[in-house]
C-alpha cells in the first residue's frame, strides 16, 4: 500500500510499504477514508522526538471502513464505517473501566521506553514514536486497529466523513477539556488557542451550557471561525487580554480557562512527554506566557483545564494556583468516553467538526499538506488526506 513515511527531520515521503495484517485476535484492518494532520505531528517531523525510526508511517486522527476482522472481534463487522480515537484502549483494565482510556494499562507494546519518563506507561497511540507504542499510523491506505470492539465507533448514517474524522481526536480532546470545567449556569469559559482542539473546546463549552465563550488567538481566520461558532474573539496581539477578560466578566474573571495552545501549531491534539523534553530544550517564552496568562486570568476558585502540555516549564507560578484555589484538570484525550455522545451532537448539528477541514489533498500530496499546515499557509487549519 501507499503511506506517508517519516524519513528524518523534515523528510516526508509517500512510499509503498507492506499492507497491515491482523496480528492479535481483537484487531481489525481499516481502509482509511480520511486522515488528518495534528499539531503534535510537527514535533515528530521536526525530529524533536528521539524514538522515531526511519520509515515510520505518520497519522493518528482518522476514520475509515472495516475491511478485515480478527477472530475475537464481537461487534465490529466488515463494511462498518467507523471513527477511531487516537489512543489505543483495551476496554478491560482498571483505567478503561474508569473512563481513563488514554491511561490504558495494557495497550503499549514498548512500555520500557516510556516508563522511565513518566513513572508508568500510558496507552499506546498510533504513529507517535516508539516511546508511545510504535503503532503504524493512518496516513496510509490501510491501518491495523487493535481492540476493535472498544476503539471502533460506527458513524451514523447521515454524518459526513469530514465530521466523523475529527471525532477521532480534536473533538474529544476539546470536549474533554470543556468537561473538565464542570460548567454551571452563567459560567464564562475562556479558551486559549483556536486550532482544531481549541475550536472544538469552544463548541463543547457551549453544548455543556456555558453562558459565554471567549476565544483567544492571533490568526484572523481562526478567530473568525471561533466567532462563527459563537465565541467572542480576542486577538492577543491587539488587546490586553486581562483587561478584556475582566471587562467581559464584570471583573469576576472566567470561571474556567482552557489552554489549547499546544506548542508548534495552535492547539491541535495530543502532546506528549517527549514534547516536554523538547520544550525544556527549545523553550519559547510566548508559550509559557499563554498558560501563565490563563492562570492569572481564571477567577478565584476557578478551573484551569490544560490540553496543551508544559510539563517541565521553568518558573511555573504554582503559588498563583495555590493562593487562588484553582482546580487544575488535564489529560491526554479519553476519547472512548466521549465519542458516542459527540457523534450524536454532530448528527444534530450542535457540533460541527467538519469546519476544521480547510484543505484537502490526496495521500500522494500529503507532504505538501503538512507544509501548508505547518506554516498556516492560506489559512490552513487542518489538512485532510484522502488515501
Amino acid at each position, binding site marked *: 500500500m501507499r503511506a506517508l513515511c517519516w524519513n528524518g527531520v523534515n523528510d516526508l515521503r509517500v512510499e509503498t510499504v*507492506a499492507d*497491515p*495484517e491482523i*496480528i*492479535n*485476535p*481483537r484487531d481489525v484492518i481499516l481502509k482509511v477514508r480520511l486522515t488528518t494532520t495534528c499539531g503534535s505531528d510537527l514535533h515528530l517531523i521536526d525530529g524533536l522526538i528521539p524514538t522515531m*525510526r*526511519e*520509515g*515510520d*508511517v505518520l497519522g493518528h486522527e482518522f476514520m475509515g471502513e472495516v475491511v478485515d476482522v480478527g477472530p*475475537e472481534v464481537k461487534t465490529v463487522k466488515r463494511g462498518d464505517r467507523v471513527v477511531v480515537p487516537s489512543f*489505543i484502549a*483495551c476496554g*478491560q*483494565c*482498571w483505567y478503561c*473501566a474508569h473512563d481513563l482510556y488514554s491511561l490504558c*494499562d*495494557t*495497550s*503499549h*507494546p*514498548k*512500555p*520500557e*521506553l516510556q*516508563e522511565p519518563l513518566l513513572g*508508568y*506507561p500510558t496507552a*499506546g497511540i498510533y*504513529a507517535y514514536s*516508539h516511546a508511545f*507504542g*510504535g*503503532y*503504524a*499510523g493512518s496516513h496510509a491506505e490501510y491501518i*491495523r486497529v*487493535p*481492540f476493535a470492539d472498544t476503539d471502533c465507533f460506527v458513524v451514523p448514517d447521515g454524518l459526513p466523513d469530514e465530521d466523523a474524522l475529527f471525532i477521532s481526536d480534536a473533538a474529544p480532546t476539546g470536549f474533554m477539556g470543556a468537561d473538565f470545567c464542570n460548567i454551571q449556569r452563567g459560567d464564562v469559559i475562556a479558551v486559549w488557542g483556536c486550532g482544531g482542539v481549541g475550536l472544538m473546546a469552544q463548541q463543547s463549552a457551549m453544548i455543556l451550557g456555558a453562558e459565554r465563550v471567549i476565544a483567544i488567538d492571533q490568526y484572523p481566520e481562526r478567530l473568525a471561525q471561533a466567532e462563527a461558532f459563537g465565541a467572542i474573539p480576542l486577538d492577543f496581539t491587539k488587546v490586553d487580554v486581562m483587561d478584556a477578560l475582566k471587562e467581559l466578566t464584570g471583573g469576576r474573571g472566567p470561571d474556567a480557562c482552557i489552554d489549547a495552545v499546544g506548542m508548534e501549531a495552535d492547539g491541535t491534539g495530543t502532546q506528549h512527554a517527549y514534547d516536554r523534553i523538547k520544550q525544556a530544550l527549545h523553550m519559547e517564552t510566548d508559550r509559557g506566557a499563554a498558560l501563565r496568562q490563563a492562570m492569572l486570568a481564571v477567577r478565584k476558585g476557578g478551573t484551569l483545564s490544560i490540553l496543551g502540555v508544559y510539563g517541565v516549564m521553568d518558573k511555573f507560578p504554582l503559588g498563583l494556583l495555590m493562593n487562588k484555589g484553582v482546580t487544575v484538570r488535564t489529560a491526554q484525550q479519553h476519547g472512548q468516553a466521549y465519542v458516542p455522545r459527540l457523534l450524536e451532537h454532530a448528527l444534530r448539528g450542535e457540533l460541527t467538526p467538519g469546519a476544521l477541514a480547510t484543505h484537502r489533498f490526496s495521500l500522494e500530496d500529503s507532504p505538501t499538506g503538512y507544509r501548508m499546515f505547518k506554516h498556516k499557509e492560506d489559512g490552513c487549519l487542518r489538512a485532510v488526506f484522502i488515501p
Partner: protein
Amino acid sequence: MSTAIRKDPPGSAFDASAHAAVTIGRPADELRALWLDPRTCTGIWAHFAIVTMRGDGTVDWIARGPAGSQYRWRTKIIDTGPDDIRWASVDGADVPNTGVLTLRPAPGGRGTELHLDVQFDPPGGVVGKAASKLFNIVPGEIVQKALYQFRALALTGEIPTTNPQPAAREGGADR
C-alpha cells in the same frame, strides 16, 4: 508498576536482583493458573528469551545477549503454594538464577497484586560481567516488561505488539 534493581555488595553471591509489581483485576487462582499455562511463559518473556515450558514443570530458556551471543538454562518449579510460584535453574545453567512470583490480594476489590523477583548469578564463564551487561536489556526491565505483558494477557487475552509489522523498516522498531 514499580521496579528496582538492588545491587548487592561486591563479593555477594548474586550480582543483581530485579523486582517488579503489578496489580491485576482478577482473582489469584485464575492468575496463578494462567502463569503456569505453557503458552503464557513463551509470550510474556519473549522480549528477553525463547522460553519453552515442558510438561514436568521444567522450563527451557534461551536468552539473547549482546553481539548474537546466547545463554541457555533450564529452570524447575521447586515449590508451589497458593500464594507464590518459585523456580530455580538446574545445574549446568549458563546464567544461574532463581525467581519467585508472589500473589497477594489488592485492597478495595482491585484484584491481585503480583510481585516478581528474579535473581541472576553470573557464573565463572562470564566473570567480571555484571548481570545487567549479560543480556540486551537490564534485569529490572526484564521482569517489569514480563509483568506488563502478563497483565495484558490476563485482562485482554493478548499481548500488545507491532511485530511482525513494526512501524519502521527493517524490523527496527524495538529501541
